[in-house]
């Protein structure tokens, strides 16, 4: 008899842990039948190997028109709907996807990002200066976690400093869950206009920045550049901001781990990987649709069925990670799937790593007595959005 499909577990027991039900499901089988909002029955991948297979096997597609939505959420239209627009490479498969990927990755090589390190360090110090000047207590999200990655993105896109504030306001409103829908929509429209203006400027006078490199490649239309720009902002800004906010919260809530890192800053690379693994800020997904019947870890995924990959569950699979429920910055988080896997693996992952490797130690060094300025249970979290994080993090020193 076929197993009865479940609804996607979504309730987190606390700010740092994925829904409890996921571990039980994974223990039974790495693939579980899953029901979708429109009545579709697909799968939930909770095992590490199953997740890797689904994300890397070319028999699984990322195309939006093949997807079904597992939960009734405000961003459902991004997940399922019509075919991808020009440049919307996240929702494409190779070889169509490959063309965009190659153009983009050339701007994101490890070496090129390495050259950005001094600028990122400067930006971080500027934000810390402002945070210190604002005085204890402050909201760390507003003063640090959001400004650092937004300023770094400005560097990448060559946004003139004169327009920095305008640009940050658009971004801030778009990711603000408390902003009314109308305001968010206005910010979205204003941001698209801003992007169009930026593309026009770069066409006239390309700079040294990464976005100029893309415009200057001569291979992309304005429509493609706008959609690509939008994806890169969406993917590259709030994610890092949430990791800085939630990561700081996690360190402050695990004093033993914080003491280790303060005592030996050379632990930072491993600490960043472990925070990425342990916190896995993608609530659920990526989603893939089977282009033909595929067997995954003993489950037969039929052609057309959608698989929701649970990255938080895969990253805590005891078959892959030792003592996975514990936050241990000296453990081996290597191989975690927080940036995904397969041809769509995060383009900006090395940038995100560099930002965190610079920002966390700089923050701890600047404020040796950094602590929460409210009860841990009063820190508001982002539960019903694609990316997990804290909305505010009151801190004192």
């Amino acid at each position, binding site marked *: 008899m076929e197993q009865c499909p479940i609804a996607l577990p979504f309730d987190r027991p606390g700010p740092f842990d994925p829904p409890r039900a996921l571990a039980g499901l994974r223990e039974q089988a790495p693939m579980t039948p899953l029901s979708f909002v429109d009545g579709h029955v697909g799968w939930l991948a909770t095992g590490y190997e199953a997740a890797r297979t689904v994300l890397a096997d070319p028999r699984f597609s990322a195309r939006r028109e093949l997807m079904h939505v597992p939960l009734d959420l405000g961003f459902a239209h991004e997940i399922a709907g019509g075919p991808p627009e020009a440049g919307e490479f996240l929702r494409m498969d190779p070889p169509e996807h490959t063309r965009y990927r*190659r153009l983009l*990755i*050339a701007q994101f*090589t490890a*070496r090129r990002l390495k050259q950005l390190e001094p600028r990122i360090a400067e930006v971080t110090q500027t934000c810390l200066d402002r945070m210190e000047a604002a005085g204890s207590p402050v909201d760390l999200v507003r003063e640090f976690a959001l400004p650092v990655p937004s300023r770094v993105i400005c560097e990448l896109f060559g946004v003139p400093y004169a327009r920095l504030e305008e640009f940050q306001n658009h971004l801030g409103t778009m990711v603000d869950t408390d902003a009314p829908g109308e305001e968010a929509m206005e910010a979205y429209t204003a941001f698209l206009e801003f992007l169009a203006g930026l593309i026009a400027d770069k066409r006239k006078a390309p700079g040294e920045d990464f976005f100029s490199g893309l415009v200057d490649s001569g291979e992309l239309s304005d429509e493609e550049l706008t959609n690509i720009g939008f994806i890169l902002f969406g993917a590259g800004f709030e994610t890092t901001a949430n990791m800085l906010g939630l990561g700081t919260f996690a360190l402050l809530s695990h004093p033993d781990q914080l003491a280790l890192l303060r005592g030996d800053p050379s632990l930072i690379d491993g600490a960043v990987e472990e925070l990425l693994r342990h916190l896995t800020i993608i609530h659920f997904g990526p989603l893939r649709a089977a282009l033909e019947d595929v067997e995954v870890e003993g489950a037969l995924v039929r052609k057309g069925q959608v698989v929701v990959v649970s990255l938080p569950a895969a990253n805590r699979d005891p078959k892959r990670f030792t003592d996975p429920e514990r936050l241990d910055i000296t453990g081996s988080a*290597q*191989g975690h799937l927080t940036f995904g*896997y397969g041809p769509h693996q995060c383009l900006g992952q*090395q940038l995100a790593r560099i930002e965190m490797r610079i920002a966390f130690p700089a923050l701890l060094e600047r404020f040796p007595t950094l602590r929460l300025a409210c009860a841990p249970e009063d820190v508001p979290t982002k539960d019903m959005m694609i990316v997990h994080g804290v909305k505010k993090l009151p801190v004192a020193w």
Partner: protein
Amino acid sequence: MRIVADKDVCVGAGMCALTAHDLFEQSEEDGTVVLVVERPADDRLHLVRRVVDSCPSGAITLADD
């Protein structure tokens, strides 16, 4: 042991260059893998195996010859 890197399969995630930057680089043109050392010393093999495991596209393999 010999490292084999398939540029056609590579998606330019940069895991190899990050994990073992003396053995792998990324092309300035399209970000795909560039092999710096084809036959790594024996004491580097554990690192190469980590690279093989972490490559998201399976572009890097170890050959026995």
